[in-house]
């Protein structure tokens, strides 16, 4: 099975807008220049796009505009390869983390001299940090097969060279060294024996990398694990002999965005900008399916089932994040009790309530909830990352709370962990006892916090979704899905009546029944069938709404208002003046207790068991503009209905 992650891209970031180049050139004074640049840096940019953004940064500097709130950071770069191609992508990537990065580059082949000479360009620039970007070609690792003594001497010599450079930096400018370890070449000499035989390259480079790590541990200097990055993408991809020959590029330029991102996130970690809290959606993020509809037995979360394993794997990873001090929180559109059920009762669930610091399960928008989580934990929004499978929710959170990191998630949950890991939100340069204790400090009592006033501009967001709603009467094509929704929907379901496929089929041409199957498309894609309505003729001029259900995935998008307008329009057309509806409470449908009231119905009575009865005069039904296009199909066939 081929996986869908393009390792030459920053696949956890959203794709840039089509007019990206234009937007880079038209940075304006109206809003903070630094913020505009940072917004442009937040996309999955390729090397050319990073260069375009860097040009915009250079232009803003030249015009002496303030780049606040970007924080200045000066980085020296020591390398024997061609680094000029790296500087613009580094500048652009640093903006992603809130830095106005200035790079000072040593002359080609001048690494040791620049480090040692007190008056070198790098020392004179007083850098905050110096990146020592050497690769295997830059170390004196002479090939000495079978000669362990010579191999040790060679590695010693390589370390001596690095120590000299490091010492020079510390003495000359007291800057922090960011030291790259060494990606081994893709080629071998003997084959597997390279790992066994002293003096072969593989073994020597491994020994060198071990020595580099040992030498850095416990000092103020930092390791940049390029060997790890290169092995992740594959050594034969990382090293490009063509590009080395062409321009002395130390690695294939396709990985420039990834490399620059790793340098930038290391700088961010150095400045304490790592994120500290992971906020998680639940349905189809932590388990497969919808707990409110599928129930405890229906959600996918089991060993032995490939999909269930994928979610378990994510939970396992999240738990290890917690162990290293990342605070966990939940934001889910659910009823609180329902959402907590898997945490309390599901035998395979790894995450439990006591792992979650704040647990927000309600029907309010997620930005409002995430803001409440941030305030409750006293962690700024820039400390939060938010995981959600739903692109509409992700885009809303990005729009309202740009400080929160929101990764794109691949469609296959098997790749969630890799995505979250590659995004590097929790990159740290230290690990202390304090980190270990942080989870306890935040008292993981899974508490629920009251929401302040909703501040989110939902209406504006809904306009931007480019929604098209489609109404159709029941038909053969939709029959199976209609039946499935009727028998599965528990939450947004007014009466929870269940019908067989045969009953659904018979409704298709029953003259006393008016039916709707509703689909919704938005700019993120096709949501498929998301709502079903059945009205039965109750009197010559009245319809009783027998069934009204909707997928919670399209909650808060005014779909129910659009559906009501459609019912009202058809009713008027067919001489119906009264609509009646009822709410039959179940354990799961508290969400729609006030459905009819919100839509302008008047309560006419109640029955045993909490059932409420509602009525609407279609002539006084509110007409309002709803932010979506409406399409109708197949109604000619049902013209006789009503």
């Amino acid at each position: 099975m081929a996986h869908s992650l393009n390792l030459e891209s920053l696949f956890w970031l959203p794709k840039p807008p089509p007019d990206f180049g234009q937007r880079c050139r038209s940075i304006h004074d109206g809003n903070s220049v630094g913020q505009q640049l940072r917004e442009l840096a937040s996309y999955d940019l390729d090397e050319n796009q990073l260069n375009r953004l860097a040009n915009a940064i250079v232009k803003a500097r030249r015009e002496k505009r303030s780049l606040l709130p970007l924080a200045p950071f000066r980085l020296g770069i020591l390398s024997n390869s061609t680094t000029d191609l790296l500087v613009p992508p580094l500048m652009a990537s640093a903006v992603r983390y809130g830095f106005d990065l200035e790079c000072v580059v040593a002359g080609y082949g001048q690494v040791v001299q620049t480090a040692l000479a007190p008056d070198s360009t790098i020392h004179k620039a007083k850098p905050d940090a110096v990146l020592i970007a050497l690769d295997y070609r830059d170390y004196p690792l002479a090939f000495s097969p079978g000669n362990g003594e010579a191999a040790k001497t060679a590695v010693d010599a390589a370390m001596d060279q690095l120590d000299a450079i490091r010492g020079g930096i510390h003495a000359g400018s007291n800057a922090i060294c960011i030291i790259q370890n060494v990606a081994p070449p893709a080629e071998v000499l003997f084959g597997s024996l390279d790992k066994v035989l002293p003096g072969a390259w593989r073994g020597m480079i491994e020994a060198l990398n071990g020595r580099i790590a040992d030498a850095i541990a416990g000092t103020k200097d930092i390791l940049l694990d390029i060997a790890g990055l290169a092995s992740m993408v594959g050594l034969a991809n990382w090293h490009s002999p063509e590009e080395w020959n062409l321009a002395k590029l130390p690695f294939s330029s396709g990985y420039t965005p990834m490399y620059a991102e790793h340098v930038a996130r290391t700088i961010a970690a150095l400045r304490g900008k790592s994120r500290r809290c992971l906020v998680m959606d639940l349905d189809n993020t932590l388990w497969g399916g919808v707990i409110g509809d599928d129930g405890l037995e229906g959600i996918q979360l089991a060993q032995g089932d490939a999909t269930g394993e994928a979610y378990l794997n994510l939970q396992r990873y999240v738990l290890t994040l917690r162990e290293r001090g990342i605070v966990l929180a939940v934001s889910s559109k659910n009823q609180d009790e329902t959402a907590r059920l898997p945490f309390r009762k599901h035998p395979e669930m790894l995450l439990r309530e006591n792992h979650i610091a704040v647990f927000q399960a309600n029907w309010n928008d997620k930005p409002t909830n995430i803001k409440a989580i941030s305030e409750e934990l006293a962690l700024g929004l820039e400390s939060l990352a938010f995981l959600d499978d739903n692109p509409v929710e992700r885009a809303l959170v990005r729009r309202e709370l740009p400080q929160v990191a929101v990764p794109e998630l691949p469609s296959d949950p098997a790749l969630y962990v890799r995505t979250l890991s590659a995004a590097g939100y929790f990159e740290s340069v230290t690990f202390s006892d304090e980190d270990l204790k942080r989870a306890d400090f935040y008292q993981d009592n899974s508490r629920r916090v009251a929401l302040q006033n909703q501040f989110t501009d939902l209406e504006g967001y809904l306009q931007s979704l480019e929604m098209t709603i489609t109404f159709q009467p029941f038909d053969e094509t939709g029959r199976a899905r209609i039946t499935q929704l009727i028998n599965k929907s528990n939450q947004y379901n007014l009466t929870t009546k269940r019908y067989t496929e045969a009953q659904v089929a018979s409704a298709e041409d029953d003259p006393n029944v008016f039916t709707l199957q509703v689909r919704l498309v938005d700019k993120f894609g096709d949501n498929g069938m998301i709502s079903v309505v059945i009205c039965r003729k109750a009197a010559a001029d009245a319809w009783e709404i027998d069934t009204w259900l909707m997928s919670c995935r399209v909650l808060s998008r005014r779909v129910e208002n659009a559906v009501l307008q459609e019912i009202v329009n058809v009713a008027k057309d067919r001489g119906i003046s009264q609509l009646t509806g009822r709410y039959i409470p179940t354990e799961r449908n508290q969400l729609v207790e006030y459905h009819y009231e919100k839509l302008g119905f008047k309560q006419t009575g109640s029955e045993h068991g909490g059932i409420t009865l509602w009525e609407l005069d279609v002539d006084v039904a509110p007409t309002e503009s709803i932010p979506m296009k409406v399409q109708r199909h197949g109604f000619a066939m049902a013209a006789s209905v009503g």
Partner: protein
Amino acid sequence: MDNIALYEKLTAIFHNVFDDDEIVLTPQLTASDVNGWDSLRHVRLVVSVEKGFGVRFAASEVGRLKNVGDLASLIAAKVS
């Protein structure tokens, strides 16, 4: 891919590489005609063309290129 489509795609790549949406490609266009077309930018151009068209060039092929027309012919030979 016909020549018009090829030039269209190549133009978009040039705009991206040179951060200049005004560049108009002609077969006669050379590096000295375009602002910022130095040796480093040339590397980025070659790599971007390789990626954009899904082709690979040998160093000897790149070395022989004299103008945009040569580049377009090389691409056409590889994608056909």
